[in-house]
């Protein structure tokens, strides 16, 4: 491995677009097939050319392998990813390859590091961008149906959604975590978990319109009533979007007392009659049929209770149909059909009263336990690792600190950059694999796959041999994960 100088230009988004091959197949009508294009300031002409090129590449490569369409195209300066989420609908994202300056014969020349644009990570980011759209808007096809096949209706929704989403993708910080897309679970004892589970059951019983409930504490998952696939998308929305945007509000909000909670999604204050705040529609796709629900989130101390409400179901005993306009996701002026809404301020008042009656004792018990756990936690682990279990999507990570500074913890960036490649290599090699990579600076990166578990560890051991490193990793597995069975 070669230690690289830091990039003079980081990975960046060149373009991002959605097109549909059903439209604009006549010459001169090409612009019709472009459903969304970023950057918006690009000229009509360049949009058509870029989309046309992508279409051509896919069609050309398709002649060699029609089963698996082309996934990405690497050029000297860019890497373009393709994804066909639904028949005839294509998404593409082009990444500018990071650049380092190299001095050659006294002249500084740019060197493009295409190996640092990991195909698995960025393709995963592209797919997630589709899943997020589908979570809030539904499939492209279903949106088209909703707007009576008026393609402009779909276009405006794509525009509303992606114009903001694209800006939140943080491509320069992409890492292994984007590829594995895991969930962080709260370490919790059995009894407190059961208490939370019972609280959720009680909530679902008292509010039959609450179809699913997700309980998080300190942004870590405790209980999910969603199917795994939906949970993955939802968790990503929470951690990359909702929680970061809410954090400062909590700090400034004067009415916050330790006892009180508030709706993160829902009415900002139930005493105000008209202001329902944001209550997004979401569409769950993991079940046999898509389920359209409304998302309300209540935050109480460190706990976050996410309630997926079926608006067609009467939410409570007393409920007057109350039509109001509301917005979707973070699009403030977007008007959505309100025909199914039954959520009234009275409903929210009751819901808040319910939560304030039943949740605080449970949350306080968890808080007490967490405080004890932190107190007794081993100080500063001497090794850094990423653990991922594909079966329950559990992820643990002491290497990559999110978001911002991803190279802290004394781990060289080179080691981190290696992780996505190791991830991809593991999966190409079988079900039980171990790869050890030595870096030039005494660092070792060991990746281990044991059935559905992945384990990446970064070690710094001077002049260690491969054997010693393997033993060290085995020792770590035994001490850190003594409650699970690593098949070697």
């Amino acid at each position, binding site marked *: 491995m070669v230690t690289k100088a830091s990039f003079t230009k980081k990975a960046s988004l060149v373009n991002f677009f959605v097109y549909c091959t059903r439209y604009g197949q006549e010459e001169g009508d090409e612009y019709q097939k472009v459903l969304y294009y970023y950057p918006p300031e690009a000229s009509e002409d360049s949009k058509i050319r870029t989309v046309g090129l992508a279409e051509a590449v896919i069609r050309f490569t398709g002649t060699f392998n029609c089963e698996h369409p082309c996934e990405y195209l690497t050029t000297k300066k860019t890497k373009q990813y393709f994804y066909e989420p639904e028949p005839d609908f294509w998404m593409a994202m082009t990444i500018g390859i990071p650049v380092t300056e190299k001095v050659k014969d006294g002249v500084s020349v740019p060197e493009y590091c295409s190996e640092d644009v990991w195909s698995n990570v960025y393709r995963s980011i592209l797919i997630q961008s589709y899943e997020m759209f589908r979570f809030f808007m539904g499939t492209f096809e279903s949106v088209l149906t909703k707007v009576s096949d008026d393609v402009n209706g779909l276009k405006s929704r794509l525009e509303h959604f992606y114009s903001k989403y694209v800006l939140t993708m943080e491509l320069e910080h992409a890492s292994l975590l984007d590829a594995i897309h895991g969930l962080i679970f709260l370490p919790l004892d059995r*009894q407190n978990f*059961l208490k939370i589970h*019972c609280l959720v059951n009680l909530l679902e019983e008292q509010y039959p319109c609450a179809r699913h409930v997700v309980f998080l504490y300190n942004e870590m998952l405790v*209980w*999910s009533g969603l199917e795994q696939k939906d949970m993955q998308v939802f968790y990503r929305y929470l951690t990359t979007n909702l929680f970061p945007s809410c954090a400062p509000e909590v700090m400034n909000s004067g009415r916050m007392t330790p006892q009180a909670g508030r709706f993160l999604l829902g009415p900002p204050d139930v005493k105000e009659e008209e202001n329902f705040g944001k209550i997004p529609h979401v569409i769950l796709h993991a079940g046999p049929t898509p389920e359209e629900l409304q998302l309300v989130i209540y935050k109480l101390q460190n706990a976050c209770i996410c309630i997926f409400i079926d608006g067609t179901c009467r939410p409570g005993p007393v409920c007057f149909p109350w039509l109001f306009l509301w917005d979707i996701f973070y699009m403030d002026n977007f008007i959505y059909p309100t025909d199914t809404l039954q959520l009234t301020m009275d409903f929210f008042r009751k819901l808040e009263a319910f939560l304030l009656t039943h949740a605080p004792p449970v949350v306080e018990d968890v808080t007490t336990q967490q405080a004890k756990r932190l107190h007794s936690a081993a100080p500063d682990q001497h090794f850094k690792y990423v653990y991922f279990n594909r079966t329950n999507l559990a992820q643990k990570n002491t290497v990559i600190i999110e978001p911002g500074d991803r190279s802290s913890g004394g781990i060289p960036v080179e080691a981190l950059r290696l992780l996505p490649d190791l991830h991809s290599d593991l999966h190409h090699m079988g079900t039980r694999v171990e790869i050890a990579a030595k870096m030039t600076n005494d660092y070792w990166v060991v990746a281990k796959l044991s059935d559905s578990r992945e384990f990446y560890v970064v070690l710094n051991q001077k002049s260690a041999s491969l054997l010693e490193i393997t033993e060290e990793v085995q020792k770590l597995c035994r001490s850190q994960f003594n409650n699970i069975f690593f*098949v*070697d």
Partner: protein
Amino acid sequence: MKTMMTSSNDETDYFLNLCDDPIRFEPASAINSVFYDECGKQVFAVRSGGATGVIVKSPVKDNNHTFQMEDKGSLASLKLSPDQKILALQRHKNSVEFLNVVNNELSSLEYSQQCKGKHSIILGYIWVSAREILFITNNGLEFYHVRFAILSLSVYAEKQSLKCLKTLSMNVAWYEHSAITDTMLVATGSAFHPVLLCPGNVVRLPKFSLDSQHTVTERDVALAQIYGENSVLFLKHQLHGSVSVTVEIVIYTVTRETGAKKSHVLKVDQSGRVAINVVDNLVILHHQPSQTSLTFDVNLPGESDGYVIYHEPVTFPLPIKPQELDGSPCTLYSTMWVAFQPDVIIDAKTGSLWHLHLNLPAIVQHITNKLKLVQFLVGRGGPMAKSTLLRVLYLSISPEIGPGMCILAKIFDLLNGMYRVHLDKTVQSQMGLPAHGGPKLPPLPAQVPFHMMVCDQSDMYMHVFLTLVNEYKNTCPTNIRSAMIEYLRSLGQFHIPVQHFIIELLIDNLVTDSAFYQLHQLLQYNVIPDSKPMACTLLALRSMYEPAHQVALDMLKRLGTANEEILEILLSNFQIISAIRFMEEAEGSFQSSFAPKKFLEAALTNGNPLVFHSVFKYLQMRNLNLRNSPEFIPSEACDVYVNKFMEMFGADA
């Protein structure tokens, strides 16, 4: 289900009923006097002063007698000694006469005992034991020993047959006595003395008085045992104009150490004639004018001022179940009724003695609050108590009619609190329960009924959860699962280890519902305890839910005693190299039963010659290390694989 709840017939409507076979005796009349002895539970029908017969009837068959005796004037009372050998009777104000029972007949020899004080009047007497009798006079208590001998004419000496053991002097206005608690309440003007009667001794406890000034007569007092406690019940009246309104029943608890202490107040608010019975630790107040009865349970929580607990009736007033007597409807709540403790009702007019019974299943529809109902039922004894409780639990979880998780949680906590107390008392060592004072054990029920009913996990499984799961097999409602989770939480709250069959049922339910991700979360947080049977259950789920396999292996690993099983699983999965590595790592734990044949067989079935080659070579090396020879020993039965190896790779490979 619903129809069962709302259907009404005689059986389920009435909570109280009289026994079907009352003891019958000749009704009281001018020539027939009737006496009832609470101690011996015997009715004495005395015709013509005994000359034409004394008929003694009792619920105990052996205590039925027919005697004849001389008519020596009107009788004030008759009482047989507990061993049925001596009949004591009172004809005069200052003496008690005795007649021995010989061969089921009264001896003609009568002896008598006068009370000590010249001017004392005997208010009554009590057989304390077979040979001890207590006289209660207006001036005190006199305790006698009766010398019993087959008296013949020669030793006939009336005066010497009783020996005074003890006297206590006090002013006695009236007294009440309970044979069950061996306690007597003596009224001395405005104060009361509890007196404990023990064989050989009579103990007077410190006096106490009621807070209010009104006069109390013996009609307003009942002595009973309630939840093992020696209790005195006072009916407290208040005059509303000329009408007496019973406002409350005040219960004092009597112990030898502390004397009498006011402990409960039962709120009544009825006017007119009332009578008290105590059945199965419940206080039943019969109200004659309205022909209904109120039931109180002092075990139920009530308002408390720190000393005294105030109780509301358990149900609204309910009538006793209509009954037939001699082919025609029996008059209930007759003015001729007299109630005796604990559960006896006598109608002197018809000559009947009934025991009052509870029809527990009927209470289910009279107490709508399910938590209160369960609290009520756990205090009950009798054959129907537990089945009724389990039925109520079943109904509480049933979809649509259940009271909801909030109440259910409290019900489970109540039951498991008592379950925990029971476990502490009995099987602590066997179950390996965490010791008391472990972290966060919630306060255990302070007041545990003395015949505490315990609903353990197998009761809950058999009669509640399993029945429900079977009944709602097709719809698989989530609230049954929620209830099971709630039950697990409650068990955990009281540090009671959950048993395998409960978890198994929960897993079945989750699997039927394809809620695998939820199941995985339960496993992840160790809600499902580790055990070999559980690991096997999970392994069996693999075809439906692949990750169950991984979780099962984790579980076996954590158990630390299941290395053989892990090895078998790896081999059956053809993870032969992994199996060898695992075996080497877990060295020592199963070298003795090491069978190279298994590895070779799996390697061969696997179909990869390279793996077979490696495994074979590895085992040869192992043999070399162990025995200095690469050969397998005959007992390992590996010949067939050795031949196969040579066939595949040649003899010198």
